[in-house]
């Protein structure tokens, strides 16, 4: 209780000029909804706690003139875990003036109009993504007035933006995508698991293979512990020549990672991803999406020229280290990359040599035998005569 009073004092001290905010804050400090703020205390700044002292209140809302309701409730814990925690509330809501907040009047006409206008806040930092998005199918649908077309918050959420795969993002709306792909794409479920949606639906983007560390025993991605970034250090120590991990170095890295493992070993699972997440915003109409299999399933295909080995970082974002493209086709990869294989694209060179030997051997044996028979034909006739 003493701690609560102290924080209450601190809050009021910060906003002592704003009587209204102070009163509301003091009230909410003793309400049940304050539990949410308290849980996120250690992560959030004092200013953000100030905002959340009102906005963590469940049911806080604004009735718009068109009859819609704008939810003003923000989940403090979710925000504390989001990638935007560092910039705080003011990072996106810098236009809020505490002297007249909440404003007696505002010009929010509809939820849709508000969501579209708020995209400008995203643009402040994400100008590159915004430009990519401008040429996308989603942007075209927004400008056509399609009410279902997503703006930034439609895909990324608002106050709980966290790293997640494109698939997790896309299926929120495109829930029928898997069924639609099953009609024409062999192994559609597997493709959805190992190929980022944008890898095909942003056809102009450059792609790569990300080999992520997976825990077979725990059935999940391996995460780096907060405050002890070992993965990159270990990868760097294995990469003796500093030009990316080759097949032997990658094998040694995995052996080192699994050195103390007593359960199922940690393995690498590959995914086709975009080289920069920014380009994932340049989504095209599905008629433009990549459908030709040999875009990936052929030797030297574009995605297989850039390889990274990664681990999920403490914040959910990948920590990546570069690997050489030869790791995908090396004979050593049968051990180190046993859970990643793409027909044609990652084929083993050693098996290619064996195939050529079998092909030529299969032809050479009959041809050679026939030749010897022909050369010894006079002995053959003598033998048959006997």
């Amino acid at each position: 209780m003493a701690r609560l009073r102290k924080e209450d004092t601190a809050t009021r001290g910060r906003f002592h000029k704003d009587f209204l905010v102070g009163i509301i804050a003091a009230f909410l400090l003793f309400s049940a909804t304050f539990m949410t703020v308290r849980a996120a205390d250690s992560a959030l700044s004092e200013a953000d706690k100030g905002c959340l002292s009102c906005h963590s209140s469940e049911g806080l809302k604004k009735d718009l003139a068109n009859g819609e309701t704008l939810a003003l409730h923000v989940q403090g814990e979710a925000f504390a875990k989001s990638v935007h925690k560092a910039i705080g509330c003011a990072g996106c809501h810098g236009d809020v003036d505490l002297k007249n907040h909440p404003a007696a009047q505002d010009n929010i006409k509809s939820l849709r109009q508000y969501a579209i206008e708020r995209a400008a806040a995203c643009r402040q930092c994400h100008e590159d993504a915004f430009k990519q998005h401008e040429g996308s199918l989603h942007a075209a649908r927004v400008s056509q007035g399609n009410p279902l077309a997503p703006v930034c918050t439609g895909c990324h959420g608002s106050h709980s933006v966290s790293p997640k795969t494109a698939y997790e993002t896309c299926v929120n709306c495109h829930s029928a995508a898997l069924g639609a792909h099953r009609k024409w794409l062999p192994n559609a479920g597997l493709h959805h698991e190992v190929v980022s949606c944008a890898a095909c639906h942003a056809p102009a983007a450059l792609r790569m293979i990300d080999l992520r560390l997976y825990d077979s025993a725990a059935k999940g991605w391996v995460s780096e512990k907060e405050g002890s970034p070992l993965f990159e250090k270990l990868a760097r120590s294995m990469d003796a020549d500093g030009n990316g991990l080759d097949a032997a170095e990658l094998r040694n890295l995995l052996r080192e990672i699994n050195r103390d493992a007593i359960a199922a070993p940690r393995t690498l699972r590959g995914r086709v991803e975009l080289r920069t997440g920014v380009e994932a915003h340049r989504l095209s109409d599905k008629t433009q999406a990549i459908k030709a299999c040999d875009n990936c399933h052929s030797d030297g295909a574009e995605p297989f020229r850039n390889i990274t080995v990664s681990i999920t970082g403490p914040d959910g974002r990948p920590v990546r280290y570069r690997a050489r493209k030869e790791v995908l086709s090396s004979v050593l990869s049968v051990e180190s990359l046993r859970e990643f294989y793409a027909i044609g694209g990652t084929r083993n060179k050693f098996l290619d040599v064996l195939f050529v030997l079998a092909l030529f051997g299969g032809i050479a044996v009959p041809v050679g035998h026939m030749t010897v028979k022909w050369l010894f034909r006079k002995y053959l006739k003598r033998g048959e005569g006997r």
Partner: protein
Amino acid sequence: MQRIYVHPLPVRIWHWINAVGFVAMIATGIQIRYVDLVGLMSFRSAVNLHDWIGFVLIGNFFVWLLFYLFSDRIKVYHPELSPVKHFRGSFRQLQYYGYGIFKGDPNPHHVSAYHKFNPLQSMTYQIIMLLLVPLQFVTGILLWDVKGFSAAVEFFGGVRVVDTVHVLCFIFFVGFIFIHPYLASLAHTPTAHFKAMFTGYEEVEDQPVGAPPE
């Protein structure tokens, strides 16, 4: 020259479906694996054909298996239990193919209804039919639906391990598909064994041993 019934109808049906199927599987397999080098058909068509023919061949395998399991002809697959006899016979057969055949020596193996394979064939077909073909089918099914069979794929060591086994078997069959018909052409006439695999009757010079009355 005497005619003896060596290849019963189910075996002949199985054999020719298997022969055509394996050639098609190798062709589509090469197309799938080397799409950047081979242009017989699209990758997707090759995958679809490979899948369908694969299932036909798996069904066909059971024609072979069930026939032999419920027929006394299974004796042709009984292994020679004496290693000395087996390796002596294999050596004689190798000596014939590598030397005697060039001099016009007679084939040391005498075909009969219950003893149609020479020692080399006997060993080779036991390995092929009881190990390599089932291995090819099992790995093929796992690769057909990697996600659906993810537990089995993981059990066998991961998708790359399963694929490597599948490709190693494929490489063996690529060599086999050339050598097998050539060896079949080394009868008393080049087409004799081929005709026998259509009619069921082999032409033999000696009195067959242990052949049932036709």
